[in-house]
């Protein structure tokens, strides 16, 4: 599990490199796919490259995300809370493990609200989601 998490840590860091400043909730209304995207030269973003999740995961040896349509909702088909690799655990670890050296916390504020939204009337924290961008 740790190897997988370390691989995903690289993905997370890569995803973070595409964002240009300290993230705020409104900057990433769709969560993962708002951060993990293509940053082209001249876009004004701090880093350039393809930081979408599919190509990044491919580099780690993860199976092709053939059936994924909505991210990260559809990821829970395999990574449910009851699975050996719950998505929440994986994503939390790659974003917060070794916070003193983790780009997510050191450079981008480590905000929960980048990935989560609050449904205030219901009093429930939600996971932001959006259609895949690959």
């Amino acid at each position: 599990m740790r190897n997988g998490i370390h691989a995903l840590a690289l993905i997370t860091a890569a995803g973070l490199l595409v964002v240009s400043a300290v993230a705020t909730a409104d900057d990433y209304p769709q969560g993962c796919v708002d951060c993990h995207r293509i940053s082209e030269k001249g876009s004004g973003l701090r880093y350039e490259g393809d930081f979408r999740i599919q190509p990044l995961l491919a580099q780690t040896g993860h199976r092709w995300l053939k059936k994924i349509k909505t991210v990260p909702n559809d990821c829970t088909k395999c990574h449910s809370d009851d699975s050996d690799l719950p998505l929440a655990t994986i994503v939390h670890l790659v974003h917060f493990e070794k916070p003193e050296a983790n780009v997510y916390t050191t450079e981008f504020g480590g905000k929960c609200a980048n990935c989560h939204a609050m449904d205030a009337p219901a009093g429930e924290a939600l996971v932001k989601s959006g259609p895949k961008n690959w």
Partner: protein
Amino acid sequence: MMRVARILAPALLTLTGGIALADDYPQGCVSCHVATEQQDMRLNVIFDHIEHSMAGQRTLLIPTGCARCHADEKGVGGALSKLIHRSHYTDPVQKKFINEFNGDCVSCHKMDTDTGQAEIRSGKRNWQLRILSAK
């Protein structure tokens, strides 16, 4: 229950001065809900105002012990997480908790960076049981 939560949240916000940082409130609720010279905003005092049952006064660990009645799904008093989230993120409280005090998730939660689990900050009650108090 909503009434309880709506009273607790502004009370907390009134008490805290300045920008709320994670390190400022290592024990969550009781790190923020304290007594000052100006106001006594400890939870036990607020419980009295809202006519909460005595179970609140007897709770040792806050908010861990609140789960006796406010557990998710099966809590007879309603899920504490929903009550607290609503009270901190709905208007008019929202403006203070978020905009004035920069309150956010880590005011009450912390991340276990070894396990990847988001935890709830907790601490021992900061009031004396009434039954033990000198009359």
